[in-house]
């Protein structure tokens, strides 16, 4: 009899753990996104309706990284008159995100920004259920009548950071801690390498894949392995500042990504390729409010729209390098997107983009080869 009681007790205890866990997960999100909305529905009925914009992030905001850069954009929108914003962070791609997006839609958010690739299908699905609301998806390719997508030409900023890295290396070996083998990452490595080789034609960019978006331990280790192999500048694609920390400790230089990472590596940080979502988010909100917003569109914007930029130079970057980079930046700023204009050779030395030609957006979005000067491989 006593034994049976103990088994029951154990099972109950395990069940309590499970319930506690499930409770934790839901609470975090409800506190942020749902709690205030309920009260407002009753209070504000007669007055002019406040405009509500919702943001869904794949990772925690933290204080650096991809979601952090989107949240800076949200804060920019939040300062507008009559606009209220809300966000849900750390939302898993897939079914979880569909629930979060639908929750926002049910609360009557006028526009919802879903900022990760894996939110695409869930968002399109919810968009078909709420035809009156507007949806914006970042980094995907599907659209609907009330859903558009958007992304930035980050490769332009990476090219500029490559110019800086190529000018600052003395060993001619630059390390790149790479995330996943997808065209976005490959395009970034290629643009960076083109910049490096323009400043230093003999330099090489060594690539180590981590297959992670955020793993400070592994990403720092990968950077150290590149430094051991003779690299003296470290660039990265992941959200963690791990590689920056490695460069700082070894007295090497580093190039950040997503947002200004100077705080993590004050002596090493040359510059960073950064996102600047604020102006675009503001413009989108204004368009939705005055009715000029259009669905079914794809926006792929670069420096001409100030979506991407580079962080302020570290004090170690000399004046002539700054001038060179500023001149190229001014050109990109005028809308002259020359980064991948041929002739461009692949790793085998064969010309893949002929002289004077510029690849189409479709070709850029499907890029699957490394340019000459990259040491590493894709399979």
């Amino acid at each position, binding site marked *: 009899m006593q*034994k049976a009681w*103990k*088994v029951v*007790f*154990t099972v109950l*205890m*395990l069940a309590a*753990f*499970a319930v506690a*866990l499930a409770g*934790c*997960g839901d609470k*975090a999100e409800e506190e942020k996104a749902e709690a205030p909305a309920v009260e407002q529905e009753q209070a504000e009925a007669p007055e002019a309706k406040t405009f509500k914009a919702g943001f869904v992030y794949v990772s*925690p905001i*933290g*204080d*650096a*990284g991809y979601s952090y850069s989107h949240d800076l954009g949200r804060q920019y929108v939040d300062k507008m008159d009559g606009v209220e914003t809300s966000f849900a962070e*750390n939302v898993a791609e897939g079914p979880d995100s569909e629930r979060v997006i639908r929750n926002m839609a049910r609360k009557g958010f006028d526009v919802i920004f879903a900022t990760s690739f894996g939110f695409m299908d869930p968002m399109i699905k919810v968009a078909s259920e709420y035809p009156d609301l507007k949806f914006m998806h970042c980094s995907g390719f599907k659209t609907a009548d009330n859903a558009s997508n958007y992304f930035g030409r980050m490769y332009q900023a990476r090219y500029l950071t490559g110019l800086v890295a190529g000018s600052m290396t003395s060993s001619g070996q630059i*390390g790149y801690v790479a995330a996943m*083998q997808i065209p976005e990452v490959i395009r970034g490595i290629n643009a960076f390498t083109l910049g490096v080789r323009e400043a230093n034609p003999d330099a090489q960019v*060594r*690539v*180590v*894949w981590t*297959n992670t978006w*955020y*793993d*400070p*331990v*592994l990403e*720092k*280790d*990968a950077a*150290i*392995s*590149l430094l*051991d*192999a003779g*690299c003296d500048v470290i660039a990265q694609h992941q959200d*963690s*500042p*791990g590689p920056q*920390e490695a460069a700082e400790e070894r007295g090497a230089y580093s190039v950040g990504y997503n947002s200004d990472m100077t705080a*993590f590596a004050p002596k090493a940080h040359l510059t960073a390729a950064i996102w600047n979502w604020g102006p675009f988010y503001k413009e989108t909100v204004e368009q939705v409010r005055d009715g000029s917003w259009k669905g079914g569109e794809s926006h792929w914007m670069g420096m001409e729209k100030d979506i991407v930029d580079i962080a302020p130079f570290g004090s170690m970057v000399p004046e002539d390098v700054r001038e060179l980079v500023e001149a190229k930046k001014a050109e990109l700023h005028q809308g002259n997107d020359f980064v991948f204009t041929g002739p461009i050779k692949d790793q085998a030395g064969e010309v893949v983009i002929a002289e004077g030609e510029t690849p189409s957006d479709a070709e850029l979005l499907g890029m699957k080869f490394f340019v000459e000067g990259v*040491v*590493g*491989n894709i*399979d």
Partner: protein
Amino acid sequence: MSFELIIALLAATVHSGTPILFATLGEMLTEKGGVLNLGVEGMMSVSAFAAFMICLTTGSAWLGLLAGGVAGLLMGGVHAFVTVNCLGNQVVSGLALTILGGGLTEFMGTPYIGTSTEGFRPLMLPLLSDLPVLGPIFFRHSILVYISYILPFLFWFFMRRTRLGLAITAVGEMPAAAAAVGLKPRRLRWFAVTAGGFLVGLSGAYLSLAYTHLWTTGLSGGRGWIAVALVIFAFWRPFRAVVGAYLFGGVMAFQLRLQASGTDIAPQFLLMLPYALTVLVLVLSAWRGTRRSQGPGALGVNIEPEG
């Protein structure tokens, strides 16, 4: 590969093998007492967070280390309560701890992602760190690594030369016989599980205080599972655990360096290596299954009350 690169590789081997070594010894102590704990992965991440939090708020890396150990000890206490007092299934309780640990760390740790602490920095041992070859490989790490050099000897001495260690071994082999000679099997199992949890907690603290100084969730990254497998690989012997831990640390460090030096081998293959090695090791130790490769006799079996 140049000579300097090999030295750097071996130094990185010690660096990444150390957390696995702490956890393996912790799990070994637990299993020596006859309790299987599959919660290592979860205990590691909770203690990594506890260590980080305490180091962040008090500014003391040593208090952080202690907090990591205590967090591991408390999680071990939960496992001991469920399995020793309530006679709960050891596998289920361990798995629940892994899930609980991952969830708790995610829940409590998310607001701190991206913050950093001072933690432990490399400490050059005088004279020793200037030795050619050996110096850069073994004596330019944080103090936790030096502790890990002594630990296997202490572990061996404790298990083989002290009354308490021998009593734990007896309880792990045959609790009824141990009880017959007047030992207290339940109390001894409690000790083995919580003390083992403390060691696992130190490995978590190493991850957040010495391995990286930046906080993020998911620091344990599968190392806890590797530790569970390594106990079998090591045939429950501390010195073989050192070999196993460095073997795994070495493979992890090697695959990154192979990529950095420019190779034609697919990176996916290299990233797979540590896990493929785990499977291989388990198959080999099962295949060479002689008497000496078997675990404690009562491993995984709860002590039923008499009558």
